[in-house]
């Protein structure tokens, strides 16, 4: 079995700060990480490899530094890592990105047929959740988004049964392999990278593909040119001018602070108190 896992290297958004005066984002020193959602996809792929044997190839489009993220994935147990990197990809939106990644996956498939493609449910920097569906559509693969569990995989019959998160419940779907799965978060727990595998990962060559290696056929469809969306303006959020009313704990007992808060809150928001009282009457 051959599984391709698409990952993205992203800035650790938990550590991004906005400059309080200039209202611009401070990128210096913000570490780059593997998009956390992609790790659930990687782990699921590695589990299938544990059960069925085969190979896991990790694929990433990004700048040369993204090699670090691919190496990280190898340390967890991926067999092969490909970085699709070319200036021609710069400025790609989700449509152009899905075109480039789909081309690369087709190219990977020429070396060894691909049975499953995994992605995370979304990235933490773009947050669009559009690239997975885009790749599936371009490759003509069945699309399974927000998958919470792989119930059954029969590689002889080429059938897969999964559960996916839907609004208000879980859908159980059966489809044909190959297909593309976007994995929901907290569905598995990422394994530890052992010391030998980390040492191995440091040595494994990360393959670098430019646009030709990735089999890009139409250069009008990649990068800025292949992106229908245009960013017309970037700006900082309007800071809130009113400051919080602070209630200091050290000045009084916790009970007094609590009662003080409740009184201020319900004086300003009488509807809220009314609603709570109606609820307790019911």
């Amino acid at each position, binding site marked *: 079995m051959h599984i391709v896992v698409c990952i993205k290297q992203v*800035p650790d*958004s938990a550590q991004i700060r*906005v400059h309080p005066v200039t209202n611009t*984002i401070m990128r210096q020193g913000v570490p780059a990480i593997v998009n*956390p959602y992609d790790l659930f996809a990687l782990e699921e792929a590695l589990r299938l490899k544990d059960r069925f044997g085969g190979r896991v190839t990790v694929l990433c489009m990004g700048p040369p530094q993204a090699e670090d993220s691919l190496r990280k994935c190898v340390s967890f147990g991926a067999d092969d890592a490909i970085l699709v990197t070319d200036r021609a990809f710069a*400025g790609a939106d989700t449509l152009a990105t899905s075109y480039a990644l789909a081309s690369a996956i087709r190219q990977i498939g020429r070396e060894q047929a691909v049975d499953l493609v995994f992605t995370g449910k*979304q990235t*933490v920097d*773009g*947050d*669009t*959740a*559009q690239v997975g*569906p*885009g790749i599936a*559509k371009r490759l003509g693969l*069945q*699309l*399974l*988004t*927000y998958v919470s569990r792989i119930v059954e995989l029969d590689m002889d019959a080429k059938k897969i049964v999964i*559960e996916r998160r*839907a609004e*208000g419940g879980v*859908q159980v*779907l*059966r*489809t044909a392999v190959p297909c593309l799965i976007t994995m929901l*978060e*907290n569905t598995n727990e990422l394994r530890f990278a052992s010391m030998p595998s980390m040492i191995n990962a440091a040595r494994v060559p990360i393959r670098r593909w430019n646009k030709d290696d990735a089999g890009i056929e139409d250069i009008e469809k990649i990068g*800025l*040119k292949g*992106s*229908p*969306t*245009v960013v*017309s*303006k970037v*700006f*900082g*959020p309007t800071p809130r001018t009113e*400051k*919080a009313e*602070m*209630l200091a*704990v050290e000045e009084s007992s*916790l*009970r007094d602070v*609590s*009662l*003080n*808060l409740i*009184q*201020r*809150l319900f004086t300003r928001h009488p509807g*809220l108190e009314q609603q*709570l009282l109606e*609820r*307790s*009457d019911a």
Partner: protein
Amino acid sequence: MNQATVKRPAGRGGRNLELPEHLKRYKGVWVFIEHDRGHVHQVSWELMGAARQLADTLGAEVAGVLMGGPDEPLETFAQEAFGYGADLCYVTRAPVLAGYRNEPFTRGLTELVNTYQPEIMLLGATTMGRDLAGSVATTLQTGLTADCTELNIDPTSRALAATRPTFGGSLLCTIMTLAYRPQMATVRPRVMPMPKKDATRSGRIIEGTLDLAESEIVTKLLDFIPDASSNKINLAYADIIVSGGKGMKKPENFELIWNLARVLGAEVGATRPVVQAGWVEAERQVGQTGKTVRPKLYIAAGISGAIQHRVGMEGADAIVAINSDPNAPIFDFAHYGIVGNAMTVLPALTEAFRAHLAARSAGGVVAA
């Protein structure tokens, strides 16, 4: 036309930013109306309100798109859509459209777009809407902007100016699709206000068909397991939310959050690190990568107020923050702040709310 005076959005790389002639006849604003087991998702009506404003600016019509199985009450949904501002509804019924699946819905919606040619199409940023929007936009090779927080018409280009948070919410960007149609966007539940319903409004229904047999569809829906009502989490539409962050120190301390939530009949929310640590379910995550909420009261305990959390909850009417760090960013946008240890403040607050509500509903007046 004097090109020099036309203000163009920043663009590089010799891209064509002009709308080709054949796409200029795309007219009207569409809302994909999401429904499941007899109910329309409220986000569809929120979008209808936004679509009405966009269409009025453009002097165009608003259309609702309803797709479903033979037994579903799509005409009833259409009447509701008219009440919320739609001028017409496209209603497509087919056995393969009973229960959402990507393939038949993508096919149905794509065909409808190609036939009736809308200039703007809005979908809810739900598990269904995002699944469908990404597939349809790729099939149509057009632009799609996810999770918009503001939708306007750019006065110069008459294009949809879709604003969304970026970099985990630290910045906002406005995105336009200039040379492609339709212009697609998704919006999360609770971001747009619910429009007022006018039950006297009516509209036209245009029936459509989908020529697709079950045997042609690869993916089969085997079962739908509804969430048990006891653990149904409806964070986005909750009136009161008590949320905890990593400042709660350990998962057992979340019981204090639950205790206060029970007294207030509130939902429990959490930050991304808490969800990532597995303390609570992912559906409880508030923020840029979680849910957007708009409660009347939001109590944040042990939450520092990282921008990624802030963008998901700053629309709350009242925000109470409890944090031991007086310099925590949450105090910059909370309405009430308590500097203190959440582990001792929460029980005191829980008891105070309980006593206050008990006394007030007994008809008494509580002295503060």
